[in-house]
Each structure stands twice: as C-alpha cells, then as structure tokens.
C-alpha cells in the first residue's frame, strides 16, 4: 500500500472511532438524528459521483435506488424479520442488480437523454410500490424497531454509527476506483467516449460496472431508513430531493476527487439541517438551488478545485 493509502485508512479509523466515542459520550439524541441524515448524503453523493462524476453520466434517478433500498429493508423486516446488517447487504445486492439492468437499458443513451431515462426509473418504481399492499401501498407502513444492540444505548446512535461505517466503505470503494485503471478508463469515457473505445477501453462494460456499484451503494444508504424513521411511505422514500441532493453535493464539492462529494455532502447536508431547525424545512430546496448556482458560477470545479487553485497560487508565490 502507498503512503497515501495508509493515511486514508488511518483517517477512516479515526473517523469511525470518533463516531463511536461521540455515541458513548454525547447525550443529546438530536445530534445523532441530524448527523445520520448528513452522513447518509455522504454515501449517496459518493455513490452518485462514481457514475456521474468519473464517467460523466448524470444520473437523475438516485431516489429510485434509495427508495428501493428502503423498501427491500421493509420487505425483509415484514417477511423474515432479518437483522439490519442483512437488510443492508440485501439492499446493496438488489440495488447493484437494478443498476446493472438500468444500465443495460439506458447507458447507450448519452447526455441529457440518459438523465431523462433515469428520472423515469424513479417514477416507475414509485408507482409499483404505491400499488403493492404487502409493503403498505400509498399510505406507507409502520415498522416496529427490535431492541437496540449492545453496546449502543439508543437505536438512533446505533444507526448513526452504522451509517458512518457505510460512508467509509463507500468512500473507500470510490477512492479505489478513482486511483486505479478503472478510474482512468471512466475519465477517458467522460472526456471522449469514441476516443476511449478506440484506445482499448471497454466503455459499455466499465459504465455498467460503475452503474451497478453506484446503485448498490445508493440502495445500501436507503436500507436503514425504515429503522431510522420507524415509518416508510413511497412519497418520502422515492422523494426527488434525494436525486437533486445526490447530484448537487458532488458538484458543489468537486467531482474529480473522492473528497469532493464528501465535502459537498457535509457542507450542504449540514446547512440543510440547520435551515430546517432554524427557519423552515421548505427552504431546504432553495438552499440547494442557491448554493448550486453560486458554485457553478464561481467555482465550477467545486470546493476541491477551489482548494487546488489556492494551493497552486501559494506554491507559485
């Protein structure tokens, strides 16, 4: 492993330990309730960036994968009463398969046509769930949480630590893709797909792999939603704001580096939580919109691009 690799894993271990210590020390449940949402967006944004950022295929259907994850969990709780870990793994498997299937159907489309096709996936799946009584249909379904596992003292804290772990896994996968030959192939596709194909890059295979991995991670992020809210309904699980945020966060943070979606999600996710509490939850979407416009105009390479620019300037002087 390279020195950077060691540094990454040491950083990841510190983040996970800090999350565990916080869960043990901090008493106010609300912080964990809010932080869960922010970290969930770290996973979603990181997953989106694998296809949208590296390969340049803008996926507008993140909420479809997220909602599928949530409903796979609901189904498994109702049907087999499986524990949380297995719900997440199953959701990831289904999300990956869905990503592969959706990819086969849509990845031959390029640009805006691909994006429009992915919006349709959300609508199709939401309609299917609305008409499926077993998982509650349009009215939604109440979930009874099982007793919390040791050593956690509350369910929210346990879900928070679980989401931090998921985020670390997601970021590690994205980072591995970015620094390996797969990442270089995806970047070649983004820059010029025909030239990539003519220099030996199996473009369709790489895009399918990216779409499947991205889908698996998004569905995994949605799986704990059932336990987090104790209640799931189609309108919120398949909400379009997940798609918008999953796309806005990497753009604000920077799509070329794995740190971009993480920073974007932490920044935008936190601002959204603060606005929800201090002003109103309706203002959330406005915050996303304003920040997106500001960054597209002032820093098209996102926060990461901004840092690199400043660093280069300091070096230059």
């Amino acid at each position, binding site marked *: 492993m390279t020195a950077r690799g060691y540094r990454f894993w040491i950083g990841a271990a510190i983040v996970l330990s800090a999350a565990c210590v916080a869960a043990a020390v901090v008493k106010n449940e609300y912080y964990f309730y809010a932080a869960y949402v922010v970290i969930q967006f770290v996973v979603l944004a990181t997953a989106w960036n694998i296809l949208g950022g590296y390969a340049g295929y803008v996926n507008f259907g993140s909420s479809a994968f997220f909602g599928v994850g949530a409903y796979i969990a609901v189904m498994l709780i109702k049907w087999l009463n499986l524990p949380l870990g297995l719900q997440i793994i199953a959701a990831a498997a289904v999300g990956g398969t869905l990503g592969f299937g959706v990819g086969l159907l849509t990845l031959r489309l390029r640009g805006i046509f691909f994006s429009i096709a992915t919006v349709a996936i959300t609508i199709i799946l939401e309609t299917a769930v609305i008409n499926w009584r077993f998982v509650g249909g349009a009215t939604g379904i109440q979930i009874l949480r099982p007793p919390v596992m040791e050593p956690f003292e509350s369910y929210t804290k346990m879900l928070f630590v679980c989401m931090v772990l998921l985020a670390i896994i997601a970021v590690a996968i994205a980072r591995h893709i970015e620094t390996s*030959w797969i990442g*270089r*192939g995806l*970047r*070649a596709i*983004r*820059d*010029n797909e*025909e*030239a*990539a*194909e*003519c*220099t*030996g*890059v*199996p*473009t*369709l295979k790489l895009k399918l792999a990216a779409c499947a991995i991205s889908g698996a991670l998004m569905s995994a992020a949605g799986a704990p939603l059932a336990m987090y809210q104790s209640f799931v309904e189609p309108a919120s699980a398949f909400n379009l704001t997940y798609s918008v945020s999953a796309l806005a966060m990497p753009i604000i943070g920077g799509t*070329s580096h794995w740190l971009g979606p993480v920073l974007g999600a932490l920044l935008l996710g936190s601002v959204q939580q603060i606005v929800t509490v201090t002003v109103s939850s309706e203002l959330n979407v406005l915050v996303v919109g304003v920040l997106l416009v500001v960054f597209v105009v002032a820093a098209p390479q996102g926060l990461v691009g901004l840092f690199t620019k400043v660093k280069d300037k300091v070096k230059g002087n």
Partner: protein
Amino acid sequence: MAEPLLQITNVSKRFGGFTALDGVDLAVAPGERFGLIGPNGSGKTTLINCISGSLRNESGSIRFGGEDISALPAYQRTRRGIARSFQIPRPFSSMTVMENLMVPLEFVRHRHTLHRSDTRAEALEILGSISLADKADTPSNQLSQVELRKMELARAMAARPRLLISDEAMAGLSGAEIDEVLAILFKLNDSGITIIMIEHIMQAVMRFSQRVVCLDAGKIICEGAPGAIITNANVQRAYLGN
C-alpha cells in the same frame, strides 16, 4: 501480394437513404504505406470508422490478420492491433499528455498487470521518440495544434498497433510541421507498422504512399501508384468536375 493484413470485401454502409459506402473492396499488405484520398463526403472517414469499429458495416466483411472482425466492438479491434487518430483531435482533455498515453498502455498493452512506474517509463519512451517528452506533464488542453496531432499519434502507438490509421493528421499544420509528422509516420512504418493515411494534402499523401486508392461517392474509382493516380482522368473528374 502476400496474405493481406487487412481485407475488406464488399463493405456497404448506409445512413438512412444515403449510401456512404457502396460495395468497397480493399486489401492492405503487411508493412504497406497505403493512401486513401477522395473529395469531401466521398466516404473516407466512414470507411475507417467501419475498420476501427466506431461504425458497423451493414454488409460485407472486414478481416484483420485473417480473422473476421466485422462484429467486434472497437476496443476489441484496438486490442487486436488496429489504432487510429482522429480528423479533429480528441484528446482526453482532463488528463495530462502522460495520462493520455497511460489509457492504451493500461487497457491494451498490459491489461492492469504492469506496475504504474513501468507504464510511466514506457509512456515517456514513446513521447521521447516523437520529441514530446518535455510535455509529458502538461495538461492536454494546453497543447498546440501540432502537439495535439503528435500526441494522438503517440496515443495510438502506445497500443502497439500492427495497423495505424491516420485520419488527416496533417490538417491545419504548416509546411515544416507536416514534414515533422510525415517523418514520424515514416519512422513508424520502418518499425513494421502498416499505415493507412487519409489526407487532403496531396503532396504529403503522394510522397508517403506506396499505393493510393481514390474514393468517390462511396465507391473506389481508382487504385494504383501515386504517380498514376494524379494523372488518372476519373480522379481528376472527381475532384475538379467535368
């Protein structure tokens, strides 16, 4: 002629009601310097798109090294030894010159087996051979026109092709720059690579080619040595009209 490296038999390609290629037959021998000319819209680029796999021909067959490659996707053809440059350069613009070369090195040459530092050394060697080594870490979107053309050739070379298709690699270059690119192509041919050159700059294509084919409206109208092509009445009619 020895067993041809590339054998095109009765290849046709239509775009809706427009016939771009109409029963083209062509054979290119190993090590040959082959020129492809024709007026604008005569089907030259369509033909090489069919050879490289960017387009699929509707009928006929394309054999490379004895194998029928008509149904293979472009990346498979590149891995079998067909590389190309583009009429309008298509660099991977978010990457440096070095990284542009790493793509074929990683996806064709070594298929993820070689250590990164070795791949870098190999890329530097290729860049050195066309005097572009000092630009290795320059972002490819900051290159001049001639440097872009050279980088495209270097990227094609990195795939270690047996057949290199150069699609108007000299368009928009000055006289001295044309000589520079021609010298690179001669050098590649000396190392055993078969080259198909598509070019509008007649002086260059006639100097370079051993054999020239002229396309017009999707059909081959003339084939022969450069001297004979220039004086051919059909070719003159295709370019200049009656």
